[in-house]
């Protein structure tokens, strides 16, 4: 089960409650009147499954942007196959409020949002399962003779497959739209970044659910052994969720440490890489810029990390060159020019930071081809490198250097506009000026220059 916890708590999210609860009531109609409703004689088993579901929600794993996920889906899905949609909805509800909500004082409208979202997803899933011809084991009578797969396994697997897809799509889309609403990001970006990676795991959870249902069907008297048998499976699924999130955490913290390590070497650049990362992310997230270039969330993340790490190659440059107060001679300048190359070499070996390498390697390229390290021209320079070049120059200009005082933001923007089209990508510079809300006196000049070319 996937749940949402908003970053910015505001009551406007009640709109979801207003929309979802009537929809659930509509769903309840066929469940109560058209399908054989709850088997009352098996109520105690549904209760046990509900408790199982509640417990599984105690071990949630947080998602990349916001929200949580857990392995609870396999339990409600098993319930769906054994007892039908209404029972599945009840079991799902057992997992909708957790101890965490009480401890962290989650606002009531978020709790109701999650409850509604889960109930709605499993409700629709249940109906789809039923009406695409899915077998509900309890109805078809117990005994090993009538088992889930033995009849016609293509006919059995189509409803199962459809149900898993439906559940996943509905639940994650509702949450992604809420996050998009909450954090003002494009919906598709949120969905891809936050949920796409969970797809294989959701299928695994679904199959575990099927196995659980089948197991119940084959041996209803198993008792405690059910937990013993399925716990390892669920733990394995959870280990996959956890592994993903740990990977992200490790990446994040190691990137930041190394950014700091470079800065220690050159005291003039304190906080530089962090600011470059921020400027770069701001440019990429600008609405008009996003419309034109359509950067996905993971690309923006790579851009931010590249911002943090763009100067990591300076680790290999002697300190006396980096902090030299006078002009560098040719040899020393050559040495400085090596840093993108060295940085790329350091990062190349780290699989999780592969996307960052182009940003680091090309952040000193100029659009007219006169930059280093490869002399790439215009659009052949990767976008993240073009953004970084602007962000890097802007921060360098607005901070003090051993050989010059700092420029004001206005002056820096003017200078960037002067270089737009030759050193920098015009649209990136324009976007930076826009997000920083600085009017550029050099804008017309730059446009003229672009027009004459």
């Amino acid at each position, binding site marked *: 089960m996937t749940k949402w916890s908003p970053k910015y708590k505001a009551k406007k999210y009640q709109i979801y409650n207003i929309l979802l609860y009537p929809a659930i009531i509509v769903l309840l109609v066929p469940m109560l009147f058209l399908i054989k409703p709850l088997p009352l004689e098996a109520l105690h088993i549904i209760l046990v499954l509900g408790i199982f579901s509640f417990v599984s929600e105690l071990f949630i794993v947080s998602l990349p942007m916001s929200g949580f996920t857990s392995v609870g889906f396999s339990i409600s899905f098993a319930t769906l196959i054994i007892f039908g949609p209404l029972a599945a909805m009840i079991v799902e509800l057992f997992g909708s409020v957790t101890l965490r909500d009480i401890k962290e004082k989650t606002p009531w409208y978020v709790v109701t949002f999650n409850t509604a979202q889960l109930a709605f997803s499993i409700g629709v899933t249940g109906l789809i399962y039923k009406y695409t011809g899915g077998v509900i084991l309890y109805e078809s009578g117990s005994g090993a003779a009538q088992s889930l797969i033995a009849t016609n396994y293509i006919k059995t697997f189509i409803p199962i497959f459809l149900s898993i897809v439906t559940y996943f799509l509905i639940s994650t889309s509702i949450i992604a739209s809420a996050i998009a609403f909450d954090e003002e990001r494009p919906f598709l970006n949120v969905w891809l970044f936050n949920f796409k990676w969970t797809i294989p795991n959701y299928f695994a959870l679904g199959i575990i659910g099927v196995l659980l249902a089948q197991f119940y069907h084959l041996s*209803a008297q198993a008792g405690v*052994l059910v937990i013993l048998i399925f716990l390892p499976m669920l733990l394995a699924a959870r*280990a996959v969720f956890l592994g993903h999130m740990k990977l992200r955490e*490790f990446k994040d913290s190691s990137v930041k440490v190394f950014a700091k*390590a470079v800065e220690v*070497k050159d005291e003039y650049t304190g906080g530089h890489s962090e600011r470059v990362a921020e400027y770069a992310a701001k440019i990429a997230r600008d609405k008009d810029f996003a419309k034109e270039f359509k950067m996905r969330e993971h690309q923006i993340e790579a851009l931010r990390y590249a911002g943090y790490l763009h100067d990591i190659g300076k680790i*290999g440059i002697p300190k006396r060159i980096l902090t030299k107060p006078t002009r560098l001679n040719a040899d020393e300048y050559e040495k400085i020019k090596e840093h993108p190359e060295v940085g790329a070499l350091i990062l190349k070996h780290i699989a999780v930071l592969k996307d960052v390498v182009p940003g680091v390697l090309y952040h000193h390229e100029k659009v007219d081809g006169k930059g280093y390290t490869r002399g790439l021209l215009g659009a052949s320079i990767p976008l993240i490198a073009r953004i970084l070049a602007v962000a890097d120059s802007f921060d360098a200009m607005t901070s003090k250097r051993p050989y010059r005082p700092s420029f004001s933001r206005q002056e820096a923007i003017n200078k960037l506009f002067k270089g737009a089209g030759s050193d920098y990508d015009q649209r990136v510079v324009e976007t930076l000026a826009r997000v920083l809300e600085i009017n550029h006196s050099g804008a017309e000049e730059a446009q003229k220059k672009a027009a004459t070319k």
Partner: protein
Amino acid sequence: MQTTAKTTFSRLILILIGVGIFVYYFTVFLGEFTSELFSPLTFFSISLFFTEYFRIPLLLGGTVSVSGGILIAALFLLPLSHVLILTSLGVLTATLVKEAKEETPDVFLSLAQKIIVVTASAGLYYTLGGKPLLMHSGEINHWLSSGWPVILMTLVVYFLIDYTLDQYLVSLKYKTPFKPALIGAIRFQSLGWVYFGSLPPGILGAIIFKSEKPPFDMIWSGLLFLLFLGLLQYASFLNFRSSESYPKMLQAVMTAIEAQDPLLRGHAERVSQLAAVTAREMGLYGEKLNLVTYAALLHDIGKIYLDEDSPEYLIAGGTGETSLHPVHGAQILGMDPYLKQVANVVRQHHEPYSGIKRTKDHIPLGARIINVVADFDEITQVLPFEERQKPKKAITTIKENQGQTYDPKVVRAFEKALRKQNVLF
């Protein structure tokens, strides 16, 4: 010399027991075999091959396989002689195929281990009144409801013997102490629970096999084992990705730093390896062992803060309190919450054992190990060629200073570890 003899002896004993059991039951198998057991035999052999071939690598070294589940299922279903045959087929082919690809695991040793485990737990299962399910008609519900204590005990016994033997073989192979490994492997490995967790799905496998008609028995239980194996493999892959990104990055950064001086090249990596073997020798494992290894790799990271011309840049040993790079290093690393402890170790890695302000307990063990090991590497490999010493001589030099600069306990363990690695003598 004595340790090697002991190792060979215990290996031989294990293999002999395994082979003995196998030969005895092979004759039984020839008498018992019926053609209807052919398909389960094949299915379980193939599954076993897969699970043994795709063993799940663990973060802190070693691998764990989910073959336990398959053997458990087979053990509940088939007579012991059949289980032993399929065990041999599966394990032998898996290790042979693997051996053709990489360095040799001990083929017969791992097989003997499995044979012993299976025989012992099957023995228990039969003594407690259990029967091979496929050979006897009966209800699966009855088997579960009245037999669950037997099932549970079989699992526990299987786990205990398998796990103990596993860790014993690991300690034999890597020449590490046995007891810490026994606790460490399950407590500190992120997937350590698989040692036991791989077994219960075997019960489900047995139930499915008993109740479904072919070929659905194989489809279902194949799906079960495949799913479990796949999830664990994936989780392990992710764990490795995240854990390797740190050391790899640290290593790359250290290489960049060391690149400025040809004499320093490889120092960090060698120190980290030496520190790891010493720490193992002192009985460290899991997180604590990792801590020492990381800190050893990074002990000189503070040098990026120094001028390349300063005397401390190349050789730091012996400068004691005057050296600055440990402090700088700790500053850099201290910025990351994950590396706080590493920072603490790095800060004190030149602290003399008999430091005036501190008592020995305040210097972390990791720092005391790195103090010895880094100096050893400096004496043997970093110094200009004429001043270098042979390992044996270097140890004597270090021993002269134990008690003052170095912790005698660490020096002793280090010497022992070097001897095991055949660096000395």
